[in-house]
């Protein structure tokens, strides 16, 4: 749940990057942080463990500025993707306002994508939220590997597997190289703020 302080005219929204392990959630935030560090003027917090893997979460706060008289602050989080950290994922989702589902385009990760989306739906349900109602954007990551001859899932398959019912906006992206990383973030921020708008009027 976003924190809305009507007296101070502040809005703080929480967006979580969710997806299977090694799919590129942290890389998304790292790209944004490295690329725009001088503009967002905040620090990224991350705790990693085995082989550069996210242990608890990554956290990147962003000050959007004043819109319609409200100071808008966005908090970007990632969850640990590894299967064994289900309870941590659930904890990070508490109070979430928007989701970016970072799917791994590698052909060998098809099953993991589907399982991770199911876990997202289940974890949201535990907070009485519906995956079909919360602002959601899909990002099909690692598309750059197609140029390298690495077997990837066709986007049509990813759409069919993950997005056929939800019909959420989706982006083909490369978190490592940058294409559509910012577009994904912009889209989810706009959708999330719009969903909170009714509370601001």
């Amino acid at each position, binding site marked *: 749940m976003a924190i809305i302080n009507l007296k101070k005219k502040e809005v703080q929204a929480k967006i979580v990057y969710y997806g299977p392990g090694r799919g590129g959630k942290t890389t998304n935030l790292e790209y944004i942080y490295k690329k725009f560090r001088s503009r967002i003027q905040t620090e990224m917090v991350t705790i990693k*463990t*085995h082989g550069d893997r996210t242990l608890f979460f990554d956290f990147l706060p962003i000050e*959007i500025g004043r819109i319609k008289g409200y100071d808008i602050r966005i908090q970007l989080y990632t969850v640990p*993707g590894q299967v064994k950290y289900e309870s941590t994922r659930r904890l990070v989702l508490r109070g979430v306002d928007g989701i970016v589902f970072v799917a791994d385009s590698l052909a060998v990760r098809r099953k993991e994508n589907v399982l991770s989306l199911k876990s997202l739906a289940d974890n949201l349900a535990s907070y009485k939220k519906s995956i079909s109602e919360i602002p959601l954007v899909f990002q099909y990551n690692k598309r750059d590997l197609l140029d390298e*001859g690495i077997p990837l899932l066709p986007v049509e398959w990813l759409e069919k597997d993950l997005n056929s019912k939800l019909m959420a906006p989706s982006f083909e992206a490369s978190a490592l190289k940058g294409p559509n990383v*910012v577009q994904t*973030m912009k889209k989810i921020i706009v959708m999330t703020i719009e969903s909170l708008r009714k509370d601001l009027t």
Partner: protein
Amino acid sequence: MAQERDEDNFRSQVEDRLDHLFEEESPETTEGHVALAEHPLKGLKAVLLSIDWEITDSTMDSLLNEIKNVEYVYSEDKIILTFLQLLGSIGKYVKANKSKAHPEATRVINSVYEALERVALTEGMSRPEKERMLLEEVGRFKKLKEQVVLRKLAKKEPAVSEVIPPPEPAPEEKRIPVTESPTPEGVQLEAGREARFAEMSPHEAFAYALEEIKNVIQAEFRALRAEIKLWRESR
């Protein structure tokens, strides 16, 4: 009608602000870098990318097999052979320890591979530049070994342990430091605490993470000193 206009205006304001805040410059170019599509490294990269968190014997065997395949292709290139030996050495260690391997191991594998790919695919790269990149990765490899030693020293309970195998020397290789540097005897890895890690309470896990950070900083200083020494020797 007015509400609709107000909504459009609000959305427009948000989008404008985001466009201003996250305006991107021209995308990075990869000049001089050849794509992997038909390259001998393609298979190796595919295996590295498919190594899941739950590392299996099968994926690690594939990695080691791919390393052998590429070694065959580059049998005349001592620099690339040394890169491959570093990969093989860490690969064997990860295979033996799997998820109990040191946290840095897979990061070093990825780093070594990225450097290897740049050396193999960048047209016109000079030999000194290739050697410089190799030297950096050798430094990372040595740092990893030091971190493994540190973890062993921090060990407080019996644990399954494994030894990091040294990279096998490149045939007739004389210039590359990795083949000259002695491997510390009895480099062993502590695994018991890692195995329990997932079961720790958040408080315990945080304390553990702090300890890890402390160890990493100490290892960074050791590695830095080692790299300075290597750099001086290479001049």
